[in-house]
């Protein structure tokens, strides 16, 4: 129970932080912001790694974790790259 409460505590604080972060965002950054925060949700790859690490000799666990690693990596790598591609275009304008 103690563990649960302290985790909820963290979750509540992070929720408020996330809400506060989105204030006045210029519309042209909405798409990159969505895409960039989407990459962060790929953090679940951490869970996928742990699942594979704990799989021992169990093939089913290993395969589930393996698929999760692939999915999570696609989310992370693709998400960050695609966001950077969008933002690179703005950069060019700013420096000109």
């Amino acid at each position, binding site marked *: 129970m103690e563990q649960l409460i302290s985790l909820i505590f963290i979750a509540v604080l992070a929720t408020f932080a996330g809400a506060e972060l989105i204030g006045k965002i210029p519309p042209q950054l909405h798409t990159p912001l969505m895409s960039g925060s989407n990459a962060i949700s790929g953090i679940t790859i951490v869970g996928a790694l742990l699942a594979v690490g704990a799989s021992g000799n169990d093939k089913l*666990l290993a395969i589930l974790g*393996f698929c999760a690693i692939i999915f999570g990596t696609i989310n992370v790598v693709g998400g960050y790259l695609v966001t950077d591609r969008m933002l690179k275009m703005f950069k060019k304008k700013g420096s000109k």
Partner: protein
Amino acid sequence: MNSNFILISYIISAILFILGIKRLGKVNTARQGNFLSAIGMLIAIIATLFKMDAIPLEWVLGGILLGTIIGALSAIRVAMTAMPEMVAIFNGFGGGASALVASAELFKYLNGKEIYLAELTKNNSDLTTTMITIVLSVIIGSLTFTGSFIAWGKLQGKISGQPITYPGQNIINLLILLGVVIAAYFFVVNPENMMAFYVILGVGLLLGVLSVIPIGGADMPVVISLLNSYSGIAAASTGFVLGNQALIVSGALVGASGIFLTNIMCKGMNRSLTNVLFSAFGKVDATKTGPQSGEKITIKEMSADNVAYTMQSAESVIIVPGYGMAVAQAQHEVRKLADELEREGVDVKFAVHPVAGRMPGHMNVLLAEANISYDKLFDMDEINDDFSTADVALIIGANDVVNPAARHDESSPIYGMPILNVDYAKTTFVLKRSMNPGFAGISNELFAYENNYMVFGDAKATVSQFVETLKEEA
């Protein structure tokens, strides 16, 4: 490695994520923000490698390698116009990963209950909490997975962009939801009840499909943003399953910021989130006869040459880009047109509606890609008063965002949505492929207005025709 060290790494990751999101919100720092957040992710992944009981190289390296190749290739290859779909797909995979991790945790318990329970007690946790959070992760994760793919299909045109509805839809969804609550109860009291678990998984996958198909294609950006928030929540609940702080913090950050971003997008369309999700917006009512079904409306056409001459002799031209420009990949031609007109001494501005295209900021990204300078782009609020003094409003593949019915026709589905006041300009030209209604499925009364002329054809071809004509004149 020392577990404190791993926790400290997670704290650093969390800080980098927060700074990253913060910086993503400003034009000058956005790219750096994305980079910081990526570093945070790398730190979290490396720290986790030290936390693992064992590192089965073939699974870990193989998975990361495969994921990197697929992710990187799609991210590099995707056309700027298909960006929203791409984000949807990436997001779907994130949600799917969370559901998989939670399921793996269930099988871990079933394989060695005593060891698992001992571990839970050691961590001051209990089985009921773990099972409840597994249910949440699986439902939200699988819903995000299928929902994202439906959103992708709708934007790609693989699934009808029209809202798909059937009688009793909301009641059926409600019954399904009730069913999943019952299945969840049976599963949590007895985690060995695999039947209940598969029902939960199946319903999660089904809910993703059922909740997205009744939503019109034009609203997909909002849906993707909401699904992005869901995948954050799925990651956070997976964090509860594993008792992992990195997942909880990052997931909650994305979940909360995603909801707020979704809200901002809805505001741009002057609609509420519930309205977007449940009203089957833009569904063409078969009992009503639109202008396209028989009733005569007169529209005037003008040749590309004449349009070019008109713009050439104008003092000010406001260009309104829309999804049609994106589809035709006409942004580079549009820049040439702006250059030519400016050489002729015409004042050229761009008016960007907050929801033009398929995603907020979609047009800005495309125009930036074509090297059109920032200071020529204006948001709706900044430019709406300028239309009354403009000689020409050139509408390139935009439709619903310039439909005057939104101002006065209470029966129109888009009534109340803020629009660009293009009809106040002296003359309007609409570049359009055909007379089909816009993505929202609504016909546009602007086309029949006195001072409006249509130019039919592919936007790119038409605009380059303008450029040719202007060059010949010069």
